[in-house]
Every structure is written in structure tokens, then in C-alpha cells.
């Protein structure tokens, strides 16, 4: 175990000496309230071994929009946020699966394969408005349900975690 930790340290050090390496920029420290914490097998960290995000940091990331209906809401709504894939790349995630945890302690495992272009996003806006906890905010993993049948299954619904607060990248 100590050898493994040692190797990881070296990797972290390497990334520190190569500030512009890869797609991800140097991860700045969060200024506001942390609304998302990414832990586990990631290369970019800003608070200890975690990557912590406030709303501004998330909003600064490339915004993607999904216009879809959901089983939990009425009618078609426009969700916008950061693509799960983009976020994982941003933190240099190297794992096979994600363990997503909600404020209400709901926990679900999302395979890394789900994080694709035009796949799920971590929505922070609903119809251009920030989402409150009462509206299942502030972060909600939204799949493009209307876009493809494969996204309309019980499993996908269960992965559509709202009131998201942290992601643990499993190796």
C-alpha cells in the first residue's frame, strides 16, 4: 500500500511540475460555497485530495444544454450544465465508475462509460434559473432521456441523481 501511495505522490508531483499538461487546467481553489466535491481516482485536486467546486467554477466550465422531459417533472424543460465527461476530464479522473452521492444520502454507482459526448450533464440551471434544493437542485445529473430510448430505463432513472453533492471516482 505504501508503494502505491508513493507512486501516486510522484504522479501528483509530476502534474504539479507540468502545469498545462492535458486537457485540464490547473484547478483553482473554490471561492464560494462548495457545492460539489470530487474524490477518489482523480489527478486534479484543490482541497486536499479532493477537487472542490463552487457554482462559479462549474459555470465557468463549458455549458451544455439538454432540452427534455423527465419522469419527475411536468412538461419539457431546458437543463444546462457541465457535461459529466468534461468534468471528469477536468479533474483527470482515471476510474471505472463513479459513486454519486446526494444531499439526502441517496447514493448510486454510475459506470464511467456513461460519461460520453452528448451524454449526461451535471445540470445547474433549469430553464436558465439556478435550482434550489426544493427544486431538486442545486446540481442534478440529467440524461438526454428524450433523445434516445436507451436513456429511458429504470437504471438510467436511478442514476439521475438530484441534489448531487459529491462524486467519488472508483478505480
Amino acid at each position, binding site marked *: 500500500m505504501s508503494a502505491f501511495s508513493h507512486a501516486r505522490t510522484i504522479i501528483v508531483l509530476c502534474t504539479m511540475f507540468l502545469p498545462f499538461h492535458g486537457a485540464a487546467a490547473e484547478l483553482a481553489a473554490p471561492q464560494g460555497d462548495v457545492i460539489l466535491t470530487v474524490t477518489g481516482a482523480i489527478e486534479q485536486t484543490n482541497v486536499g485530495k479532493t477537487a472542490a467546486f463552487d457554482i462559479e467554477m462549474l459555470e465557468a466550465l463549458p455549458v451544455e444544454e439538454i432540452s427534455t*422531459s*423527465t*419522469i*419527475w*417533472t*411536468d412538461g419539457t424543460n431546458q437543463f444546462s450544465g457541465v457535461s459529466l465527461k468534461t468534468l471528469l476530464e477536468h479533474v483527470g479522473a482515471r476510474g471505472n465508475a463513479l459513486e454519486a452521492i446526494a*444531499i*439526502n444520502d*441517496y447514493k448510486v454507482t454510475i459506470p464511467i462509460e456513461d460519461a460520453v459526448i452528448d451524454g449526461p450533464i451535471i445540470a445547474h440551471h433549469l430553464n436558465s434559473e439556478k435550482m*434550489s*434544493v*426544493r*427544486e*431538486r437542485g442545486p446540481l442534478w445529473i440529467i440524461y438526454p432521456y428524450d433523445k434516445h*430510448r436507451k436513456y*429511458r*430505463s*429504470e437504471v438510467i*432513472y*436511478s442514476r439521475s441523481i*438530484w*441534489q448531487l453533492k459529491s462524486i467519488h471516482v472508483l478505480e
Partner: protein
Amino acid sequence: MISLSRPGVLNRILFAIATLLIVVLVASYGYRLFNAVTSLRSAPHDNVQWTLAQLEVDLLMLTNATLTADEKNGALDQVRERFDILYSRINTLSQGRVFAELRNNEQVRLDIDALDTFLQRYVGLVDGADDPLAAALPEISSALAGLRQTARKLSLTGVSLYAQSSDEHRAKFEQLLLTASLIALALILLLVFTLAILYRLFRVSKSRAEEIQHSSTRQLSTINASLDAIVVINDAGTIIEMNKAAETVFGFARKTAVGADMASLLVPEHYLEAHHIGMSRFRDTGEKRVVDQGRVELSAMRADGTEFPVELSIGSALDKSGSIFIAYIRDISQRIEGQNALTKARDEALAADRAKSDFIAVMSHEMRTPLNGLLGVLDLLKQTDLVERQRQYLNVATSSGEILLRHVNDVLDIARIEVGKISLDSHILDFGALVAGVADVNRPAAKAHGVRIIAKVKTPAHPLAGDNHRLRQILLNLVGNAVKFTPQGKVTIGLDVLQEFPDSATIEMHVSDTGIGISHDDQSRIFDDFVTVDASYNRRVTGTGLGLAVCKRLVEAMDGEIFLESTPGQGSRFSVRLTLPHATGTKNIQDGPATGANDTLASVKKLNILIVEDNETNRFVINEMLRSAGHRTSEAIDGHEGVAMAQESHFDLILMDISMPGMDGMQATKAIRSGNGPCRNTAIIGLTAHVLPEEQLQFAKTGMQHCLTKPIRMATLNALLMQLDDNDPSTLSTGVVKNHLEDPIDLDVLDELITTLSPDVLRATLIRALKEIDEGIINVKILARQRAFDALKLAVHKIAGTAAILGATHLNQQLADIENACKTGRMDDALAAIEGIAESADKVTKTLEEYIATIDED
């Protein structure tokens, strides 16, 4: 058995409709099943159950938060968060699409409303300042306690409702599955059925394929077993297939030949152009000159380039790629070789036969010349003083010579007919004269052994035309034979008209005898060459056995038929049937000089005669004949000399040989006629070995008056000279010279009576005549004794008349002499002659009695 080849149109439509129905049914159920499965896939039931269960949890968590908030500072944020979570949960329940069904339940709606009411009541406090919230915590807590039952109830109702709904869904799905299964089952059955049909079809087609395989194997073995080469080509001329025989015949391996151009492989170079023309003609016009035309003989080429004859038969058929031609080719080299050898052998045999015929003809011809000399000299010898014994020897020698001559003539005739030199003339025929002439010629021989010749001629209504000479030859032969083979009795020559046609008539000439007859076995070969029958009898008769063969050939040349009916011991009857055309012209030819006439030379005017003849013997014989008759003669040894002598002095007659070296007889005649010499109008008589009708015409054209056939006989020559004496030389011709002075009765005259009188009348006439002669002779004798010359003269004259009617020429002559003697007062001569007439009259009486007896027989 399923009809594969011609399914009905109705069947096809029904099948299509059924298939369409099944497809629609399957598609519709498939679609419904798919939808059901999709909805099952996306049915978020678990999520709903989870949410309902979480509602209770969230409620408890908030309650917990409110209860613990008293003890800890800052725990209000915890309350707020739990409130928000509960808020979001209830919000989801009241708005979420998945809960719509749940919300349809009245109780559920009321429960949600109750929960919502709670949220609305305290949301202000939660969002407000800390103190009022902290103050309200006990209240919120108790309110939550009140709601716990509601949440519980809601959860349970949800479970029950969803269970119910799930059951319904399951039932529906089950129904759907069942229907789909049934359809699937039906489909499977249909598939099984189709499979069965397909299997059946497969079996059928497999057995057919096997059948075709067998049949094609059979066909292949048939084709390969064929001894003839079989080559199949397409219409581009490419070889598609060939059999083993073709490999052997042409010397090509099948591998090399198939796919190659047939023409360049099998057609000899010099036939290529014709072949290509033929092929392109067929392609352009479809005209087939060789194809489907049966057997054709052509040449073909082997692999080594040698050409060989083939017999070819080409059939055509339509293949999927167009016309194909199937050629059956037989190598006929050997056959052709055989044929050629056969043809060569035949030609050689024919040539040899022709050489033989030619040899015979030449030999016969060469034999005739010395024979002519012999016979001429014998004739001359008769004129000299001879003792009786010498005369007998001379007669034997003469008749032997004549027989030999006849044989030579027969052989020559056969030879001529064989080489096709016979040609038929056509003249108006006088059947009466023809038959009479033949009868006359044969009478002396017949009389020698007591045979009488009777002629019965029926004249056709319209004169007919034919070759008189040849008909005479036929009749002479038949009658000669009849006389020869009839030891005693009679020979009848008849001519009947069998049928009259508008422009022709069928006649039958028949010769019947009462002779020895011909055995049945001999009858079939009697007309063959060199056949003599009855060896025992043969001693007494002579013959080459060619006579009948000549007759048959002549009759056949005239498109006629010759028959024989014979009974051994009773006689034979030969019949010749000919269909002759009606005579249209007026040309008439008279008979040639008859043989058998009196050999003694009558006293004629002495003439100055020129003989032009290259053959020394002939010249000598003719010269002697003429000189012995008291004529003056001059000789020329060829045409030139003849013309020169005719130019110098006048002759009363010129005898001109036809064939001479240098200038021949016709050229010489022309020269004399066209010149202005003293012989310009002198009668010229041609001398020839053989006369053909067209030659005779040619001789006449050159200016000859007549033509004599060698051998020249005294009698013939004498008859001709007598005519010359009587007539103007320019109209000279020969006729039948009749002289039957030796005969008691000229049977011709009697035979003529038979044809004109009925047998009864004839018989009565003859008996009366007989009586008149008998009585007249007695009367004459009495009158002679009484020397009543005037009465005698009248009596003699009367008997002479009767004798003339009967044809008793000799008696008639004797009576005429007596009459003359009476007239001139030579009484002693008359009395002496009367002694002679008694004998003659006896003969006449005897002959007549015999004759009457034959009439009775008939």
C-alpha cells in the same frame, strides 16, 4: 404432387394475400409487444416505490432535525436542509409525471394536499430568520408527527395501487404475450408447413435433378458410344461440345477443341470462304442450305491438316444462348475409296465389254467382206455348166454361206444395239405387205419340210408409222424360228389391233406354230444371248441363238413387249405388242430387195456399167455377175478414178461403193452430179455393208438413186437392173420382186382371200374352183385329142382365169403358154404342153385340198 410449373393465378393471389395478412398481423403484434417491452423497460415503478418510501424517511429526518435542533446551535440549517429535501420530495410527488397515475386516486390527492398544506404553512418560517424558526420547531415537530400517518398511508396506498396497476399491466402483457405466442405458434406451424412443402419440392427437384443427371449420363454415353463424330457448335461457330468419336476422327483432344472456332479447326482451307458465307447467310436470313437438310457429303480436315470426305448431317436447336448446331459427321473415306474402286472396276469391265463388242463388230464386218466374195463367186458358178452332183454341192455351199452370213449379221446387230448404234426410222407402215413379204421369204424353207405359212392381217383404222425394216427383221426372225422348229404343220403370222387411241394404236404381231414347242424351263431364257434349246433337235436346225435376243432388243427399243406362250409338243406363240403413232406424213419406203427371188438372170437390156469399188474381191464378183448377164463393165478402184472415168465417157449405170479410202462414194457421187460430164444424169447405186435410215437419206441427198446392201446377190442385182431397164433411171427404186413360178399355188394369194372372205365363202369358192379346174383339165384333154383348137383355146383361158384367182401361178403360166400356142397356130407345142398341165393341175388340186382341210381345222 404440387404443381410447380404452372400455379394458377388465383392461387398466387391468395398466397400473396395470406402472406400479407400474416405479415401485417405479425408486424402489428410485434409493434404492440415492442411498445409493451419498451414501456416495461422505462417503467419507473421502482423509482416511484423508492420515492414513496423516501417520503416517510424525509419526514422522519425533518422530524429528527426539529427535535435535535433544541440542543445544538446551528442545527437550524440542518432543519432547513431537511425541509427543503422534504419539499422537493413532495414537490416531485405532486408534479412528477410518473406519479400522475397515483394522483388519480382521491385519497392520494388528499394526502398530498395535506402534505403540501404543511409545506406552505411553514415555508415562510423556514425561509425566515432563525429565532422564529427555532420558536416554531415544537409546532413543526408536532405537525410532522400528525403527518407521519398520512405519509405512511400514502406509501401503502402507492404500494397497493402500483401492485394493482402492475397486475393489470402484467395481465395485459401476459395477454399480449399469449396472443403473440399463438401468432408465433401459428407462424411456426406455417413455417413447418412451408418447410414441409420446401422439403417436398427439394425432394422432387432432387429426384428430377437425378433424373436429368441419369438422362444426361445416358445421353452422354449414347453420344460417346456413337461411331459418328458429333460436334456441337453455337451460332458464332465456336465448338461447345464434341464426343469421343470426334476426337478419333479429327485427331483433336476434346480439351483443345471445345471453345475453339470450328471452321478454322475442321473446315479445309479452300472451303472456308464458302463456310463463312453460309454461316453469315444463316445469321442474316435464317436460310439453311446444309442444316436440317439431311445427309450432305463434304470435305473435312483432320488435326494433321489432311482432308477427307465426310457424310454430314447437321441439326439445329435453340439453346438459352441462341442457335446451336449439332453435326453428325461420318468419315466416309473408306466408302468413297470403295466406291471409286467399284466405279473403276465397273468402268474397266464396261471398257472391256465395249472392246469385246467392238472386236465382235469389227470381226463380223471383216468376215462379211470375204463372205460376200464367196457367195458372189458361188452365184457365178451356178451360171456355168455343171453336172447335177456339182450343182448339189454348190447348193450346199451357197446355203452354208448364207447361214454363215446371217449369223454374222445377227452378231453385228447385237453389237450395234449394245453400243446404242441402233436408230429407228418412222414411215407409214403397210402391214399387209410386211407380213406377206416375210411369209414369202420363209415359204421355200417351210415347204421343204411340209409346213404352210398362213398370214392373217387386220389393218388398223388409221395408218400407223414405224420402222418397217426393223419390224420385218423381227418377223423374219420369229417366222424363221417357227419354220425351223415345226417339223410339219403350219405357221401363222398374224397382226391384230388391240386398242385404238386418238393418236396411236396398240398392235400385236404374233407368230404361232404347231411345232415342237419350248419347255417351261427354257421359256425364261429363250430371249437371252446365245441360247439354243433342245440339243437333240438342234442337229437339224442351225442358229447362233442370237435371233430372239436381237428381237427382244429391237422390240424394247421400240418400247414394246415380247411374249412367249408355248406348250411342248403342241407349238409356240410369240407375240409382240407395240404402241405405234398414227402416220402423219406421206413418206413411204418400200421394202428392200427380197431374197429368195429367182436366181436366174432374166433377159434384160444390155447396159454399160461403171463399178467403183476399192475391194478387189467385191469388184471381181460384181464384175463377173454383170458380165455373165451380158452387160459391159468398167472398173474404178477408188472415188477419184471413178469420177475421172465418169467424166470421160457415158455409162448407163454406176455402182458406187460408199466407204473408200480418199474420196468416198458420197463425195464421188456429188462430184459427178455437180460436174458437166456425160454421166451427170446417170443412175448411181450405192453399195454399202450396212445402211441406217438416216444414212439412206444422206445418200439420196448426194444424188444416189438407190442403195444396195452387201453382199450383192445375183437376184437382187438382176431385179434392180430389170427396173432400170423398165423405168427412167432417175426414178429408180427397188420393189419386192416376186416370183413363185415353181409353186403350185401362191399361198399369199390364198391368204389374201382368207382376209377378205369369210371361211365358209372361201371354202365354197375353193371347192368350186377345184371342180372347175378338174373338169376343165378333162375338157382340155378331150378337146386336144379332138384337135378342136378354137374350143381348146377358150377352155384353156377359162382354167387360166380360175388358176389366177387361186394364185396357181405356175399352172396359169403353162395355160397362158398353151393359149399363146393356139393363137399362133403352134399346135404341136400346144399339145405337148397339155401333157404337162395335168401334172401341174394335180399339184394344185392336192395343195388346195390340203388348204381347205386347214380352213376346216381353223
